């Protein structure tokens, strides 16, 4: 008996050890991508000079690296990390492989907010007008759906269907306002939808960072509950999980993360959907590991996409929203084809 249980323990330690190693590997990869990101730009500042320039408080190189490159790299990490993380939460709670941070209509809500700000707020000259409206309407759409599921009960089907309906509603409203707009305004709206990290400065990082990082520990604390949820709502309930509370709290927190991300950068699609899948294929679905791994994967992909996007066709930038899909989709297909056993 004794030897058998110690064997199981050993195997378990072995498994978690592998998962921890994977996360450490991702972290090293992220650090490496960040160093490359910091050393690439229109001005040729070498890798070591770039890193030195972070700490040296003078000269153009310092200004460039400290005020432009570093914020951009950090924003990419926050955005990718936030979307990967939130995507995992949505997939766990809604128990649907197609769920993503945008399933509850957050992206179209944010897009609608941006359109309203661009069309009607042209006079109110505040750099936070567009992000503010985008944030507000992103949260509005998810709270609307939470309200519906408060009445109907938080079943996955209700939330997903309500999310899709909200998405279509906001998309139509966006199209309607675009149709009303002048040529200049239509142009601005289109560019907002591409997403951009060029606007990222330290102030934006402070605001976005708070919205993205503060929910992290609370969600991590729920990772056991997510594991139990995958056995079904009834089973989880029987095991002592307060299903309703877990679902609603985690959706509010994940919506906050998603809104914090897209209000400053525009819509960066796809990564919140695939980062969790990539990790699930590689390390399985224990949320204690899946959550941080998805966040790191999202961060690596968005950072790599941005660095490639601003170097491949320099000085013209390939917008981040487009580039993320360009490098994420092929990698995703590769894993999908290679994977032999069912992973979802």
């Amino acid at each position: 008996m004794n030897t058998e249980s110690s064997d199981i323990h050993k195997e378990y330690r072995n498994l978690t050890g592998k998962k921890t190693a994977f996360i450490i590997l991702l972290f090293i990869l992220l650090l490496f991508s960040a160093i490359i990101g910091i050393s690439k730009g229109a001005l040729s500042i070498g890798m070591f000079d770039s890193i030195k320039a972070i700490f040296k408080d003078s000269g153009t190189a310092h200004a460039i690296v400290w005020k432009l490159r570093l914020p951009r790299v950090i924003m990419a990490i926050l955005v990718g990390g936030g979307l990967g993380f939130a995507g995992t939460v949505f997939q766990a709670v809604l128990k649907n492989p197609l769920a993503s941070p945008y399933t509850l209509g957050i992206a179209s809500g944010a897009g609608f907010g941006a359109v309203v700000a661009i069309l009607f707020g042209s006079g109110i000259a505040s750099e936070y007008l567009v992000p503010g409206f985008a944030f507000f309407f992103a949260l509005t759409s998810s709270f609307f759906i939470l309200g519906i599921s408060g009445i109907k009960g938080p079943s996955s089907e209700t939330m997903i269907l309500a999310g899709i309906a909200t998405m279509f509603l906001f998309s139509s409203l966006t199209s309607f306002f675009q149709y009303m707009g002048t040529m200049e305004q239509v142009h601005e709206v289109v560019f907002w939808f591409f997403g951009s990290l060029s606007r990222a400065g330290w102030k934006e990082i402070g605001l976005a960072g708070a919205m993205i990082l503060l929910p992290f520990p609370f969600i991590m604390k729920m990772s056991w509950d997510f594991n139990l949820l995958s056995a079904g709502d009834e089973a989880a309930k029987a095991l002592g999980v307060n299903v309703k509370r877990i679902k609603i709290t985690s959706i509010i927190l994940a919506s906050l993360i998603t809104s914090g991300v897209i209000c400053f950068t525009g819509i960066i699609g796809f990564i919140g959907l695939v980062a969790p899948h990539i990790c699930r294929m590689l390390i399985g679905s224990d949320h204690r590991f899946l959550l941080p791994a998805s966040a790191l994967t999202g961060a690596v992909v968005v950072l790599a996409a941005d660095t490639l996007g601003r170097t491949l066709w320099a000085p013209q930038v390939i917008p981040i929203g487009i580039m993320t899909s360009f490098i994420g989709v092929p990698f995703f297909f590769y894993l999908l084809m290679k994977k032999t056993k069912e992973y979802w």
Partner: protein
Amino acid sequence: MKKLVILTSDALEIIRALNAAELVAGVNSGTEENPLFWPKLKDLPKVGRWNGPNYELIAGLNPDLVIGYAGRPGPEMEKKLSPFGITVLRLNFYKIKTLAKEVKILGSILKKEKEAKEFADWYQQKIELIQDRIRKIDKLPNVYIESYTDYHSTGPGSGADEMCAYAGGHNISSGFAIPYPEVTPEWVVAKNPDIIVKAASIGRCYQIPKPDKLKNIRTGIIKRPAWDNISAVRKGKVYVLANDIWTGPMAIVGISYMAKWFHPALFKDIDPVLIHKEYLKKFQKIKYSGVYVYP
């Protein structure tokens, strides 16, 4: 020609300049949103948006001619209107190069050749005056022109690129492959332009009394991280130009402002406000009003 429906505000301006406003039977719905600029025409029947008009309303007005942009609305406009015997005429009136020619075409169709010639001559003379002077300069200043969206520059094919050339500036984005590519803030710092011009979309300029919006946009650009390393920012040569004088028949006003910003000594005697006033009084029969640039 007896009855016209005009879908674009650019064409409507030209119609008014040709003294043909009484022929207009219908206008686009945006006309209503700029009532001070269109004191009389704003009350005419509306036929929908410039890019998606209501063909039933147009047919109901039974005009002889409908004028829209070359590209939009699409070919469905001809398909929908030809059964009613309504001719579609497509004239842009926003490209500087072809403006005078388009005005003459419209003038001959409307039998307003005299007015068309007067307008085209006035326009050409203003353009030529600037061209004559900048031909003598051997080094043009480097200019970064940003479109309405932050960090989207203006490459070949954009109206801004064309205007910059007419005003005697070297657009640092003119070598790009697409009209409005995104650039990194660092690239602009690296290029270190002498002058920055920002396109601002602030609505109907004619009805705006104070330059606050333009001023705020300028402050935002000056305060961008690390942009204090750019020559234009250090020397205060950051200018904001509002949408209404970017393209369209009033682009000549925008060009005059740019020319003066690019070559202050060379165009000391040119006052863009006077050109603007003259255009509005002589051709549009309205008083000067609104804000268009800052500072």
